[in-house]
């Protein structure tokens, strides 16, 4: 935990209310999200019990499995869920924008919209990942055939789960995580994983403070858990008898199970929408749209290749794993840098660590030329008065947080002053482009945080996997044995 986060949490304890950690919203919020609250059967890692989902606050759709141990009922549920999800995906994509041909001359398009799944917590996301894994290999013909919507659901859920590993992606939001990115509470991170308690600290109901609201939230009788695990007392006293009645074929027993589950899901449904309201009230960070564009690119690609694709392999190949790690590390670096550029409160963390400094420009020489080489080079210099505890050495590369393309290096540092020489991002002429060099008196922040240190990397092709990594892998061909995976 960083020093500023620790401070914010201490202040939250003292104030009995959450403290902000961000001044802008760092995740994209879709105008038409799909809120999904899954529940699973206690004691069964992959057996779905119910899901409440929908894109409208007053129209939650409840899907439930009256007997989760019955394989046919579970697949019927998966097929229903698949249909709802596919319908949502199709509705969310908008139209295809033409981006002009790529370097290789191929036509590029990007959908104007993309789906966004909103779950109450990371446990729910993990359950969807598992559900995706257990449905994507199902066969639609032969023995144990299932409806086509089942493997389609599996492939989409797997895609959502894999895309979520990418830092800065907003296609799947876990609300506890999204809220914690923007607020610090006075409770532990384990307690923060409870959506109701977290919301209690951030936005307590009238007449209550954070701890009091969190206490109510922790009582499963008053606030049912947000899933995917259910309250054991509910399991024993309500759910088990209802399922037993269904097994005995009692009249209306299926409906009884559904209604019981609805009581557990409805409060969380309301909480999810409240959490979305809170996030929506924050202004969007400047880089959020750019990251959402990457999400839309990924969505467009997956959607367009869905028909000819096969289920995602169970394991990454050696080359696939290395490529993915590289992509994730690049995304992580640029996500962290962009958040700092977008948000002074996030940048304050780096300033405290000495990786950034802010202050007023006391002297500016915007047209200074370095004539030591063969050709003169534009090298403006700035003197910045700062009280920040800078820990960068002279020679360190920095960029202007307000214009990250403007690069420079530290020439001297001492006695509350930093001399910065700008080296790039000023245009191609020997005089700087207007607006690139700060004037005397301007407030500036420079930082060594950058989003471009990971360049694109070259990897061998799959068929050229070297002997050090086991040699080329056999090509993946889906076959009947894939479907042999157990459901729970």
């Amino acid at each position, binding site marked *: 935990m960083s020093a500023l986060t620790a401070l914010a949490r201490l202040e939250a304890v003292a104030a009995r209310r959450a403290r902000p950690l961000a001044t802008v919203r760092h995740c994209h919020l879709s105008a038409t999200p799909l809120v999904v609250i899954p529940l699973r059967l206690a004691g069964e890692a992959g057996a779905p019990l119910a899901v409440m989902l929908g894109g409208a606050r007053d129209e939650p759709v409840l899907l439930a499995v009256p007997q989760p141990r019955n394989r046919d009922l579970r697949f019927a549920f998966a097929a229903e869920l698949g249909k709802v999800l596919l319908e949502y995906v199709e509705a969310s994509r908008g139209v295809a924008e033409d981006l002009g041909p790529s370097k290789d001359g191929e036509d590029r398009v990007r959908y104007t919209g993309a789906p966004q799944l909103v779950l109450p917590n990371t446990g729910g996301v993990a359950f969807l990942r598992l559900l995706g894994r257990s449905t994507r290999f199902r066969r639609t013909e032969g023995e144990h055939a299932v409806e086509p919507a089942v493997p389609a659901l599996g492939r989409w859920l797997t895609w959502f789960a894999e895309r979520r*590993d990418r*830092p800065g992606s907003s296609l799947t939001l876990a609300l506890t995580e999204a809220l914690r990115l923007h607020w610090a509470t006075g409770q532990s991170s384990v307690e923060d994983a409870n959506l109701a308690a977290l919301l209690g600290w951030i936005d307590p109901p009238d007449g209550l403070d954070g701890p009091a609201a969190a206490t109510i939230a922790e009582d499963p009788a008053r606030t049912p858990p947000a899933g995917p695990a259910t309250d054991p007392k509910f399991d024993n006293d309500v759910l088990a008898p209802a399922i037993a009645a269904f097994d005995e074929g009692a009249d209306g027993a299926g409906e009884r199970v559904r209604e019981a589950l609805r009581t557990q899901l409805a409060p969380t449904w309301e909480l999810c929408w409240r959490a979305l309201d809170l996030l929506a009230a924050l202004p969007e960070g400047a880089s959020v749209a750019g990251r959402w564009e990457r999400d839309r690119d990924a969505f467009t690609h997956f959607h367009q290749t869905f028909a000819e694709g096969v289920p995602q392999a169970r*394991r*990454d*190949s*050696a*080359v696939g*794993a*290395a490529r*993915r*790690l*590289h992509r*994730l*590390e690049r995304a*992580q*670096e640029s996500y962290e840098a962009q958040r700092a550029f977008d948000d002074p409160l996030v940048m304050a963390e780096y300033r405290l*660590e*000495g990786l950034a400094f802010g202050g007023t420009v006391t002297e500016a020489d915007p047209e200074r030329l370095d004539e030591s080489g063969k050709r003169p080079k534009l090298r403006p210099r700035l003197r910045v008065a700062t009280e920040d505890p800078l*820990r960068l050495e002279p020679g360190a590369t920095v960029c202007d947080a307000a214009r990250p393309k403007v690069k420079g290096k530290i020439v001297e540092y001492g006695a509350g002053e930093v001399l910065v020489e700008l080296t790039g991002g000023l245009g191609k002429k020997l005089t700087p482009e207007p607006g690139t060099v700060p004037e005397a008196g301007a407030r500036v922040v420079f930082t060594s945080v950058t989003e471009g240190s990971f360049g694109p*990397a*070259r*990897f*061998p092709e799959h068929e*050229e*996997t*070297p*002997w*050090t*990594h*086991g*040699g080329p892998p056999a090509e993946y061909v889906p076959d009947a044995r894939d479907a042999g995976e157990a459901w729970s």
Partner: protein
Amino acid sequence: MTVDPATAADAVVAAVLADLDAGHRGIVVDSPPGAGKSTLVVRATAHLAAAGERTMIVAQTNEQVDDLIERIAARHPDVTVGRLSAAGYAPSERVRAAPSVKVAGKADDLADRAVVIATAAKWATLSEGSWPWAIVDEAYQMRSDMLLRIAGRFERALFVGDPGQLDPFSTVEVERWTGLAWDPMRSAVSVLLAHNPNLPVHRLPVSWRLPASAAPVVARAFYPFTGFRSGTGPGDRRLEYGAGGMGTTYDRALDEAASSGWALYELPARHALRTDAEAVRATAALAVRLLQRGPVAHSELGSHPVRADRVAIGAAHRDQVTAIRAALGEHGEGITVDTANRLQGREYDVTVVLHPLSGRRDATAFHLEAGRLCVLASRHRHACLVVARAGIPELLDAHPSAEPVHLGVPVKFPDGWEANQAVLAHLAEHRVRAEA
């Protein structure tokens, strides 16, 4: 002990060189701290050059590349060396000084060179060209995804490295590959051996750097199954001060370090910030006081005064390093202060270490990592002083390592928790308490 250290070490080197001619696809050499790893790389390079094989050498940092070039050029001036480097690289003085070395940004310009050397990152930018042999230095510090990117450039390879040092790391946390033989987060050597279990693995048996006082401690804590011994015997290395002490706790700690090779300067127990002002001050003061007392080192190589460039201070975090640098001021000018990651592979006469667990409330996997402590405790030729707050053994007892065990992942030895306890138990015999 029946065989003298030099003979034992020579036997291993000879076996490695013999394996180079034996048609193996890969050879792994494990080297404890200061066991002559670089010397082995130089000898293997010369051996391959003499056999007429073109060789590529892969190092992890530009500094390591330059170190190797300097050694090869000095020892084998007849071997033509090419240094492949990125566009912005300005050759350092020691590289320019060697007439047998040519620097270029493109591999084609170095086609005539018997040996081409570059960092792994630079090698990874090449998309063609092939060398019959590669020597990969510090292979345990290279991630396996990097090996994947460069493995197409060579047919056979010699991997040299220290398994006890810090593992490579990633900025993202992903569990998706845990247990896979080609997990990109694992080290190059562990992935190589997972797919090629029959490759010969050699171990250099003698540390020439660590003194007789340190080798058994480090070997027991960090290399419990393979072990190694020191190349020098008790009494071969001595540290003396020109000026006597004044009886302060700093002086007593320095005297203890001079006589036993180790000292634990213990501050009162307290939970502190990472940049614990008292601990930082004590760490810097010990190093400055050391220099003030005019230390002279006597060893098998002769006697020399220990100046600032032969002293290093190690810490776990960068902010600690910055704080210690600031505390050193001008009296400590020239002393190296760095994190464990950046001290890897370096050697000094005396080191002062701020213990990674000093003043902490918890012991995380980062702070418990055996490699971190191993690096910090094995950089010295004469003495190592550790600064720590009291209470670390109790902290360790309160935080047993609770990392989950995964299928398909080899159990990591040594266990960081156990290694920490072993080192602390030894240090406790050399404790000097600061005045409260």
